[in-house]
């Protein structure tokens, strides 16, 4: 096996930083893990993380919203087709200041899951999200997104109404949204359907949440032709919190109670609040242009490519400086 850190060094080379610099803009503290070494023996297996992330009684978006924020007023509808119960959103207050919050919503029971479509949004869910993003932008409210979905719903009606277009548009709108954005992966970050809420200035994850390009079962079915290899696929996909931190998909991990978030919703929410409040504070002080340029760079850096041998890659000059000749 190849040294897994080699990949990180490749990233580092491209990004012009070494891993020891951490994620650059986040400072570790009690409320945020920014170095996987700090996890020590608390690091669980990928499959354990998958199970915890999907735990029925894990706190979902509304449970978190009610505990992290005050005075939440839900706002419904995409103004186009339908109000999708798999995505909730609205305006709430954090430390007395209004924010727009949007999250995928699973149920805590079978009945509720049927009503919420197991947290799998239709296109109209993403279009509701886009509408609320635009509301945040118009009134310069910070945006907090909560990611918790097995993925966008793959049914025929979702295809007919443009699931792909809706996800693409949601991502695109977030890349250019002129207000601060903090995203938190609460449970399952399922593929493009999760990323549609995930383009943020700061992307955090609960310690035991997962975020993956495909479900482990899906990967196993395609790569090993049996869903039985899901555990192995989970490991290979590097979808658990600490992996995401090492790969710089997320900027920090939010600690969970020792036995998992489902054992203590209040404490989980308190940890989330402690983690996001200082980030919103910090981002609010940035000029919009700086915010957008840094958001661009945050995603621009992601990926591992090898430039021709013998030509070491100089630290990449930020894109906007090239264009503006600075």
């Amino acid at each position: 096996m190849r040294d897994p850190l080699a990949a990180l060094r490749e990233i580092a080379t491209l990004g012009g930083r070494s891993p020891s610099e951490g994620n650059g803009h986040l400072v570790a503290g009690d409320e945020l893990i920014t170095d996987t070494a700090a996890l020590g023996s608390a690091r669980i297996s990928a499959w354990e993380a998958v199970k915890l992330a999907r735990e029925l009684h894990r706190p979902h978006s509304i449970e978190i919203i009610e505990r992290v924020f005050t005075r939440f007023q839900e706002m419904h509808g995409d103004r186009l087709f339908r109000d999708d119960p798999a995505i909730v959103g609205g305006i709430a207050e954090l430390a007395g200041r209004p924010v727009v919050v949007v999250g995928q919503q699973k149920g805590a029971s079978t009945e509720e899951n049927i009503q919420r479509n197991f947290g799998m949004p239709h296109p109209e869910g993403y279009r509701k999200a886009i509408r609320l993003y635009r509301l945040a932008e118009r009134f310069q409210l910070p945006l907090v997104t909560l990611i918790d979905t097995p993925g966008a719903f793959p049914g025929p009606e979702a295809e007919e109404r443009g699931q792909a277009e809706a996800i693409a548009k949601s991502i695109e709108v977030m890349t250019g949204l002129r207000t601060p954005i903090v995203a938190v992966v609460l449970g399952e970050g399922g593929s493009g359907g999760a990323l549609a809420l995930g383009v943020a200035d700061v992307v955090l994850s609960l310690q035991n949440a997962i975020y993956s390009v495909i479900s482990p079962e899906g990967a196993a079915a395609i790569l090993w032709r049996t869903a039985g290899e899901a555990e192995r696929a989970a490991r290979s996909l590097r979808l658990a919190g600490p992996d995401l931190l090492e790969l710089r998909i997320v900027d920090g991990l939010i600690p969970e109670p020792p036995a998992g978030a489902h054992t203590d919703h209040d404490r989980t929410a308190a940890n989330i609040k402690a983690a996001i409040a200082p980030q919103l504070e910090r981002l609010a002080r940035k000029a919009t242009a700086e915010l957008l340029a840094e958001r661009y760079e945050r995603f621009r850096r992601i990926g591992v490519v090898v430039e021709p041998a013998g030509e070491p890659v100089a630290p990449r000059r930020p894109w906007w400086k090239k264009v503006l000749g600075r």
Partner: protein
Amino acid sequence: MRLRMPFARRRELPSHLWTQCPDCAEMLFNKQLVRNMNVCPKCEHHFKIGARERIELLADKGTFEERDADLTSGDPLSFVDSKPYRERIEAARIKSGATDAVITGTAAVGGVPVELAVMDFDFIGGSMGSVVGEKITRAAERALARRAPLVVVSASGGARMQEGTLALMQMAKILSAVSRLGDAGIPYISVLTDPTTGGVLASFASLGDVVLAEPKAYIGFSGARVTDQTIGERLPAGFQRAEFVLEHGFIDQVVPRAQLKERIAFFLAALRPKPVDLGWGL
């Protein structure tokens, strides 16, 4: 032009001279097929073609200059399934003749200078990993820097699993760049070919100022098999084919391959980049 077997994914005769059309079962002489742009002369079935063939068809003669040709994949996850990712890439390189699933460069189309990116389904199913993300992003950034339109021809099974979330994030990376083209009033034309699915369709492929598709191209977010299994419903006829997606409002035109270049050229002539960059906030 390099003579190349047009791969039909179903029944086909392993002949160097003949190919059977998967739609009408006609036996087609390969040379004739290539002369006909790899379209069945009898039933107009559009065979998949490689990125180099596509560039020959679209770029004005002699104008294509490849960029970032030597960018190759790392193996950030040290991924091993039935074979190691590094071996899989090597095999794809030999099969397709390309270094990854997209070829990018500058070209002229109908006399208009553009940045051109063409995906190749032969390279691990046209899957999008870091190299695809990086090359298309660089193409979009060059387009912005020199205020030239961007043309992307997609053919992809989606994000490349072997690069995990790094592959997923290429959707955001490319759209960050494409979005700035829009803000700056620089045209972006997206061409969907058989098949365009998953994370490619759910990002840049869907958001062209103009979206064109080849006839009967398979276009969908989830594979029809996935949809069918998940839902247990019979799917409507023509589900997830270009014509179906057109009816549902997500494509401007379905354009036969023979007219594709002139059609792109028309839209490039009509949608000129705004003379001044109005800026995106800096």
